[in-house]
């Protein structure tokens, strides 16, 4: 059982009082921003990045991870009580959760969501625990060629699975790739797009981009949006779901865990897609689908389980491969880099304390959330009444102060403001900021790995196919790229057979 030793040592790391405290702070902040519509975990992590700078890397990541999965819990509360999803990943919870609240079963809905979230999250952590060492055993086989293939695959998946308009996602991704080229060429020392500025010689830092686009941009955009006034919340009673409810929801929780786990691992996937897929799946499986939208407990338990499972499992590609699966993970990537930790296959080996500390903190965090989420419901609902006009200037100030402290540089503050405006305009015109940020992160990885790989291969591109891991990844890349074409060809065929159409329709709803 040698493999379990570092896992157990990881618990020792989590149980250090400092780490426990930051885990608690993380999940509380996470729940809080989960409750607040508009301010998502990506924005919050972007804003808080500089604050983590002076604490130990493990502690910092434990807190940031707490914010991420804590937000999944928080988002449920307002969905159920106020019909106001705090997070995109809790949108589908509104359908049945609010109906249940109207029927006086708000407590049951919240209880089911909490239990489901806990089980989904925990299942994903267990998956992560067993999967990570397997990936890590290949760690040293990951050379420039493998990273090239991974980055290619990552960019493709981000572009194809994004939720909004594909063209706009591609435009945003292209902008991200362009921004990634700024700075001194690391192979020739040539300056690219620096306009003679020494500040740009190392390229644009990831953090000001993230803080601007996700932080400041979101804040400005939210100021413009008029939120629906918070109505008096329904009374919450009877938090513990009855045995009957639990029995009814147990299947949904089980399926949600598995579905969420796999959708979370996929680049471009994540909590939102997982929750929607789970809702669609539950509805499809139900004996009486007409109950959905009228307060079906599975309609709450399934998606809430899936979004938490996905939130947790999206750490897998980041921590084991160094490939962020979604925008929030890209921010985690940035946070790790600030701390001098490069996420990737080597992480488990080189820094087991950090790796297992973070992974195991999620067990603790989920337990904390389970204990806290219900008693705190009343407080969080009150916080919703704080006006945006008060909240926005405070968060904007924290963002700008934070931007200065990273490198003690006013230039970074200017960058944050510039990217804040970019982020605001992007949101306003319906461009997702996610593809931009992901392409920015993966773009520099792709470029440097590709050039490095070609140097090693002596300029022969066939070298990529001579290595098992990179060859496999490239085949997957080709398959994914060809998939839409194959699918539409299949759909055309099926259109002739009437039975087939129904199946594709449901799939599209997913």
């Amino acid at each position, binding site marked *: 059982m040698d493999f379990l030793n570092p896992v157990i040592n990881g618990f020792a790391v989590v149980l250090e009082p400092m780490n426990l405290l930051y885990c608690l702070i993380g999940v509380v902040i996470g729940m809080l921003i989960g409750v607040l519509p508009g301010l998502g975990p990506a924005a919050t992590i972007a804003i808080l990045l500089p604050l983590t700078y002076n604490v130990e890397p493990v502690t910092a990541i434990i807190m940031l991870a707490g914010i991420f999965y804590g937000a999944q819990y928080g988002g449920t509360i307002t969905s159920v009580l106020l019909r106001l999803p705090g997070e995109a990943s809790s949108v589908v919870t509104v359908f049945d959760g609010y109906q249940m609240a109207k029927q006086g079963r708000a407590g049951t809905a919240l209880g089911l969501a909490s239990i489901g979230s806990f089980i989904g999250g925990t299942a994903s952590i267990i998956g992560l625990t067993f999967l990570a060492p397997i990936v890590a055993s290949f760690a040293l086989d990951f050379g420039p060629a493998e990273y090239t293939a991974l980055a290619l695959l990552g960019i493709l998946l981000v572009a194809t699975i994004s939720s909004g308009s594909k063209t706009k996602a591609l435009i945003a991704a292209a902008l991200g790739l362009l921004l990634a080229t700024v700075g001194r060429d690391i192979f020739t020392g040539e300056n690219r797009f620096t306009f003679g500025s020494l500040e740009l010689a190392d390229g644009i830092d990831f953090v000001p981009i993230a803080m601007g686009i996700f932080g400041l941009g979101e804040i400005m955009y939210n100021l413009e949006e008029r939120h629906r006034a918070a109505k008096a919340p329904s009374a919450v009673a009877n938090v513990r779901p009855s045995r009957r409810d639990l029995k009814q929801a147990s299947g949904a929780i089980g399926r949600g865990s598995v579905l969420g786990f796999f959708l979370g691992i996929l680049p471009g996937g994540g909590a939102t897609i997982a929750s929607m897929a789970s809702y669609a799946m539950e509805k499809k499986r139900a004996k009486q689908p007409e109950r959905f939208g009228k307060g079906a407990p599975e309609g709450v338990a399934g998606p809430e389980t899936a979004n938490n499972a996905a939130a947790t499992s999206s750490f897998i590609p980041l921590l084991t491969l160094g490939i962020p699966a979604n925008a929030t993970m890209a921010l985690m990537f940035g946070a790790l880099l600030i701390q001098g930790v490069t996420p990737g296959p080597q992480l488990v080996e080189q820094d087991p304390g950090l790796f297992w500390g973070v992974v195991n903190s999620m067990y603790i965090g989920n337990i904390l959330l389970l204990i806290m989420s219900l008693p705190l419901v009343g407080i969080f609902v009150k916080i919703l009444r704080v006006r945006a006009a008060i909240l926005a200037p405070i968060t904007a100030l924290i963002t700008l102060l934070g931007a200065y402290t990273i*490198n003690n540089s006013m230039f970074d503050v200017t960058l944050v403001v510039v990217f804040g405006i970019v982020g605001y305009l992007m949101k306003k015109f319906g461009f997702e900021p996610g593809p931009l940020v992901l392409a920015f992160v993966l773009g520099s990885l792709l470029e440097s790995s590709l050039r490095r790989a070609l140097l090693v291969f002596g300029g022969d591109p066939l070298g990529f196919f001579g290595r098992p891991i990179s060859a496999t990844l490239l085949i997957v890349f080709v398959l994914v790229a060809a998939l839409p074409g194959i699918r539409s060809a299949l759909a055309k065929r099926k259109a002739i057979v009437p039975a087939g159409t129904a199946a594709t329709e449901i799939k599209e709803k997913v």
Partner: protein
Amino acid sequence: MMHFPTRRAVLGAASAITLLAMTACGNVSGGTADSSKYPNGPVTLTVGQAPGGSTDLIARAVSEGAAKTLGAPMPVVNKPGANGALASKEVAGKPADGQNLLLLTASLITITPLAVTADEAVNIDDFDIISGLSQDDYVLVASEKSGFKSIKDVTSAGRNITYGTTGVGTGSQLAQTVLFKQANVKGTDVPFDSGKPALTAVLGNQVELATIQLGEAMPQIEAGKVSPLLVFSEERNSFLPDTPTAKESGYDVPVAQYRAVAAPKGTPKEVKDKLVAAIQETLKSDSYKEFNKKNMLTPKEISGEEVVTQWKDYAAKYKALVEKYDISLAGNK
């Protein structure tokens, strides 16, 4: 600040009340008239590298000791960017009153100018060097799969060899490109972002050789995962006594990373003397010696003048070497 008003300040106050503030300010930060009061408030030590790296660690070890002797706090401020050029240019532009210091790395003066444009290069004449600190040696390591156990194995391999460097314009790149030319071995230079990824690439047999700083390579050398072929210092390194130098093996390529504390040009002599004394005392302390040992740094505690002469010599030598062998550090174009 004004407990002991100087005659100048009193005169200033008498002549014009509006000038008082300016005169007082002059006394505080101008320093020329009143450097006996040094240090006047915190002395900032700027580092052009990110926190956690060896340059940053050295800065923190120095500041910890020197702050005590100087009797003023000495915060370390990291301003990473352009290999340290950004921080250097900023400190060079600060008033020369000893309140702003820089931890200067030799490669920025001796090697980086070979890879970047002239206006980006940092000139050592913009600074008064306070004291040299230490020498950080580069070691050439070979991957397990390459089978190289000595530099002879490399030179007699008779094929193209891939080698990782820690980036363009670094000592690691210069040392290896020159070595390969002198040994007449064909090689492909594969730049990585820093020492750690270069070492990982050797561990994973992605490249056959790499030159990295000793402190970084030592754990893997001790674990037997990579073989040390030679060190680029002029004399054998005390932490790796069995590994020959490049010189012993017949190659004229002395490269190491040196570090020194610098102040903006024109810092008053009394201020410099105080700083030299404070730093000397720190360097003599047991805790600093322990720090050097732990990080495999060889003390090189020479005077500021010696630093300038030596670094300029190295810069000239490297320039001659790359010209002689027609090497472009910004190669791979």
